[in-house]
């Protein structure tokens, strides 16, 4: 018995340490990219084999964007990170100096090979007649969105609503605050992550409308019931740019810089862009975008940089302790 136990133990320890010996990349990503990178990694392995003759396997790690960034900061050996918002990658620089400060300038399009936006998912037939953001603050409409304090995706939701109120006629900071406050008072459940919120809406039957990433909404409709839900595109939304970055300190230690660089570059290639589009991410490449134009409805998009002065500022004003989001729930209101 003892011998078997020891064997098992040694085998596993060996197995675990051996995993990193082969040419292997670790892509630390956030939750909704699982399907995308499953497809992309296969394609990249073929591409790399053709190009260099070497085999490469890409290991995936998924979780909440902030939690994943913390794991990298605390020593998870990620060759590349593909996270939900630039703020989380910035923190990898600020807290651990694993990447340079100007990481976002190193790749085209602000290091975002694909983008997405925030849309609504409603129940079939749209019983509450939800067409745009201002329908969400109507009394009696129940809205499901995750908690912006714990979910990166939810921060996009929040900022999109804020931007909508801001761009209305006579819109200003105060009216935006008022609008978003009203919206969140219609939220009965704050899940901790985007997929938790989707489950609450889809499986538990809570709420009339789910605010979600466009790609998540597509996925939910396709995976969980075309006959049960439909997507509503608001008049204005936010351009969500999930960034990717090479983790310099890690690739240099592991000697994987070349292949990791190629991995990120491949995201911008024709094949990479097609895979992104097939997984409902808006491709950044014009030609591929034109090809899939039917899939992605046109709408007015604002960016975090223009409207909110970048992620660091947005995070501080809205989502830090005591920020505008906390003020919504201040007692006595």
């Amino acid at each position, binding site marked *: 018995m003892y011998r078997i136990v020891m064997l098992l133990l040694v085998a596993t320890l060996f197995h675990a340490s051996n995993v990193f010996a082969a040419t292997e990349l670790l892509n630390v990503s956030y939750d909704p990219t699982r399907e995308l990178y499953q497809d992309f990694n296969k394609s990249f392995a073929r591409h790399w084999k053709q190009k260099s003759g070497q085999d490469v396997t890409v290991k995936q790690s998924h979780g909440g964007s902030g939690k994943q960034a913390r794991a990298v900061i605390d020593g998870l050996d990620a060759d590349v990170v593909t996270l939900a918002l630039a703020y989380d990658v910035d*923190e990898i620089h600020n807290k651990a100096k694993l990447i340079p400060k100007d990481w976002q300038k190193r790749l085209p399009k602000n290091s975002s090979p694909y983008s997405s936006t925030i849309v609504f998912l409603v129940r079939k037939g749209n019983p509450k007649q939800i067409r745009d953001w201002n329908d969400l603050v109507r009394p009696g409409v129940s809205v499901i969105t995750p908690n912006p304090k*714990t979910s990166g995706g939810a921060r996009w939701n929040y900022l999109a609503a804020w931007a909508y109120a801001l761009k209305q006629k006579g819109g200003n900071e105060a009216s935006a605050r008022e609008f978003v406050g009203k919206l969140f008072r219609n939220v*009965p459940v*704050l*899940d*901790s992550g985007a997929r*938790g919120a989707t*489950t609450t809406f889809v499986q*538990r039957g809570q709420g009339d409308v789910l605010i979600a990433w466009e790609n998540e909404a597509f996925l939910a409709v396709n995976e969980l019931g075309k006959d049960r839900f439909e997507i509503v595109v608001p008049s204005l939304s936010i351009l969500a740019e999930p960034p990717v970055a090479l983790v310099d300190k890690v690739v240099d230690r592991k000697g994987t810089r070349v292949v990791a660089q190629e991995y990120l570059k491949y995201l911008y290639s024709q094949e990479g862009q097609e895979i992104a589009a097939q997984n409902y991410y808006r491709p950044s490449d014009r030609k591929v975008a034109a090809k899939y134009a039917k899939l992605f409805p046109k709408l007015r998009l604002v960016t975090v940089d223009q409207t909110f002065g970048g992620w660091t500022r947005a995070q501080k004003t809205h989502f830090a302790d005591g920020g505008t989001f906390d003020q919504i*729930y201040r007692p006595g209101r």
Partner: protein
Amino acid sequence: MARSLKKSHAAGWGNLPGFAPTMGYTLLCLLVVVLVPLSTLFFKAATLTLDEFVGAVAAPRVLASYRVTFGAALLAAVTNAFFGVIVAWTLVRYRFPGRRILDALVDLPFALPTAVAGITLAGIFASNGWLGKVLEPLGVKVAFTPVGIWLAMVFIGLPFVVRTVQPVLQEFDREAEEAAACLGGNRWQICTRVVFPLMFPAVLTGFTLAFARAVGEYGSIVFIAGNMPMVSEITPLLIITKLEQYDYAGATAVAVVMLLVSFMLLLVLNLLQKWSRRYAEQ
């Protein structure tokens, strides 16, 4: 025979061997596994100034979360103590069909990953779930309310009381009861004078552990609580919230407060238990 009825628990070291080595090993393990890792919390929290510390641990929202967390944990532990004793008693003393199966299933809440527990419970009690469908029209909302927190906490703490009381009852001399019966006591007297006092320390242990576990629980609760600030937000969720802002120090500050409060409560419960044992022995 007299052993269970009366014990000479004289103070002092006694004449049993092995105190020094066992105590040494116990302290060593405690130090390496518990105290050193936990001390990091204090060191990290100590990087805050006093104002920052108070700001982190005494914000209205955090205070509300203490109320929700400790309150629900207390209610859940009481529920578990009450039903745990009944379950343990029934499983040990009576024979009925299905007893063995129920007995074997008691540990399940530990083995099921907490997230699965939360998802399953939320599924059952949501308005479209098996029980939610029945309860909702009656005006009872469980999922996504503080009641859901209590429910999840009862579930995850369920094995503690059952499993601490069970062995005491199993190893318990029926002879003590028989003796008491010979002396002419009726069933109720025997239970209250002989059986309950012996069971009580174990019940208290189980209660303490169930309470402790419930206070720290996160995984199952977030799926069923609704997580509304000031209403159904638990303290461990706030710790996560702070971590999401890369505020390690703030997170550890809240963790330290929780740790100290739990420690005090556990200490009081353990002292109470010691006292109850003395009382039982008299």
